[in-house]
């Protein structure tokens, strides 16, 4: 008699999983670089190509690393947030100008505002590959020892900024 309830039982267990699945995002792929040292690089700066930028220069402070490009439409979404953040002087923002041309990049910053203390030029995208960049914009939070603590794929939203990035920055700053 009870075995006839088995199909119903199996289905109900399945429904619980399906309901849980509605809250998850199957496309979200967590980065394997979290809690690992930020890959090193030495790239020419965007503003002054005679100077270079490397993560080693930034040891001792917590910093935000934002991957952006002038051709990137979604970057425009988050840009006002970054500009506002840079005005608050809570944490320095460094940019990785990804697969872009210098003139286009400078013009873009001139037009939309420049939140970056400095931007590094990654014209061929090699550094992007090292950082696991697959969808611009992406944003990293890197601590005083140069370890990646957080990665945001896609535009930074006010919610992510308030609930994830800023609390983490404050915690890392001590």
């Amino acid at each position, binding site marked *: 008699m009870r075995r006839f309830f088995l*199909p119903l039982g199996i289905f109900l267990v399945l*429904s619980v999983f399906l309901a849980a699945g509605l809250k998850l995002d*199957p496309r979200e792929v967590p980065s394997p670089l979290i809690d690992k040292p930020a890959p090193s690089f030495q790239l020419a700066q965007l503003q002054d190509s005679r100077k270079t930028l490397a993560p080693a220069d930034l040891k001792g402070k917590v910093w935000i690393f934002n991957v952006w490009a002038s051709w990137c439409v979604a970057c425009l979404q988050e840009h006002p947030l970054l500009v506002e953040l840079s005005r608050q002087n809570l944490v320095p923002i460094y940019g990785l100008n990804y697969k872009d041309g210098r003139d286009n990049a400078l013009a873009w910053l001139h037009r939309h505002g420049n939140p970056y203390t400095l931007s590094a030029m990654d014209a061929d995208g090699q550094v992007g590959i090292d950082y696991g960049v697959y969808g611009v914009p992406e944003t990293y939070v890197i601590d005083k020892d140069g370890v990646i603590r957080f990665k945001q794929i896609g535009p930074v939203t006010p919610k992510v900024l308030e609930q994830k990035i800023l609390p983490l920055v404050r915690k890392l700053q001590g």
Partner: protein
Amino acid sequence: MIPELGQFALIVALCIALAQAVLPIAGAARGDVAWMNVARPAAQGQFVFIAIAFGCLAWSFVNNDFSVLNVVNNSNSSLPWYYRFAATWGSHEGSLLLWVLMLTGWMLAVTLFSRHLPLEMVSRILGVMALISVGFLLFMLLTSNPFERLLPAAADGRDLNPLLQDPGMVIHPPMLYMGYVGFSVAFSFAVAALLGGQLDATWARWSRPWTTMAWVFLTIGIALGSWWAYYELGWGGWWFWDPVENASFMPWLLGTALIHSLAVTEKRGGFKVWTVLLAITTFSLSLLGTFLVRSGVLTSVHAFATDPARGVFILGFLVLVIGASLTLFAWRAPRVGLGGRFDFVSRESALLANNLLLIVAAASVLLGTLYPLFLDALGLGKISVGPPYFDSVFVPLMAPAIFLMGVGPLAKWKRAELPDLAQRLKWAFAVALFTALLLPFTLGKWTPMIAFGLLLALWVAVSGVVNLRQRVAQLRADNGLGTGALLKGLPRGYYGMLLAHAGVAVFIAGVTMVKGYEVEKDVRMQAGDTVGVGAYTFRLDGFVQVPGPNYEATRGLVTVLKNGKPVRTMFPEKRMYHVQQMPMTEAAIDAGFTRDLYVSLGEPVGNDAWVVRIYHKPFVDWIWGGAFLMALGGVLAITDRRYRLARTIEREAAGAVSAVTA
């Protein structure tokens, strides 16, 4: 105006569906004839209004009404009219409307072909179908309205996804949905029987044609989808175990078990609980498939809207429908009773094993499809499950079932003798084994997989021939007629079975040959280059630019030579669709009975050179040919005389009864 008419028609249909869902079922319980008689006219009325709604949406598409959001998102003024029409069902909302149209179409068919069924039965069946209709109509009206307006209207639309601008797209969803929705009839028959307490051979005989018809459509729909992926996606693959493909395959596996189980219930009154459970679960998997592709729970190349809010609605609907029917099953099944006893070696036991194997196969596909979700929900990480799992699990499960396909039809009902069966089949097995072992050597390559695949295919084919010969011989012994007359006298259902099983053999042969012997070359070519694939030489002669109605194409000119003589020219294209800025590969395929030649353009590299993919695929069309034969077998079975004869007898009996009572 027209879109508003369409929306209004949907609302009217919903009201009718509500009446149709409540009154007939309550009427059947209360014995109220007036309430039960609501069912047929209500079903027909629903069909009319849904057809109106569908017509309104199609009209909006064909006439480029860009004030309708759905048209803006899925069409464009430079899209040819037949694709504008097909775009009606190219989106989540539109395809739901197609789903409901199919449902009301099947409802209409039930009203027309059910004169021989008792009124309570028809009322319950139509009532259950109406409940499903209510769910889908509410879903549409509340969350996925195809008639939503965009005001001010857009100047033009975002164009139909170029992947869908194809003849296969026009026909694949309707066929598939006819199958999915058709199983709702089997489902309704089962629930009606559980509600009414009458589950017997008569019920099975009524259910069978409907179920087989739905199965035929689903077979065609899946085969079309596979063929479409083959020629449209440009990689020469035809099955990827993608979640959406699996979502259609699972109901097919269970539907196959169901049509076989129904045979036992009809002929021997057995397997009643199995049959009813299979009818419920087959349609449940159809609904589950609908949920999976529209809720964002799984990623797929195929997924529609990935909107969790809609997912919540469908999940709720799913839990309600499947939960209620499985509860009804748990409550009423114990009373259903067992059929006749049968021996360990008998046709019943072969079919029981068949049931089990197909169910386990479907369950393993379900497990593989949902496993990423299970792990993610339990916080155990993100994985993806692909062909390695499915191929290694599915094939070993199907192999015994295919072996039984040769044995089952020859086994007697209730009690078969194993030595007798072995005697009849030993030559069939010997021939199959001998040929399977030797044939690959003549074809150039021998591997265990090729030999095994050929063995299975040949086994089914040869045992089918043995079956036919034995049947004719037996009839001749009984009747003494000539062979021709005897062959004519065999029931269509029997030929349907032989043909469908032959289709399976053809399918397996096709898969084995393609997987075993296909040759693929990816080469960088410029004008003048040649490459040899198999017995053919392919020479790239050059490229031309070809404008299309809504795209710009680069077309390659490829001459195919055999023994130095040109035999074909092939024109693979790379299209860039203007509106969506999406590049599309149009493979050039030279289809033949024994092989396909397949050429597609990859990416341009350097100066005037392209990466070109060339395949030689032996017997690949047998894959879809086999599926088509299976479907044809099903159609033959449905047109069996005894269904028409039984209906005539019952109609006459009903007529006689009413004449007496009049």
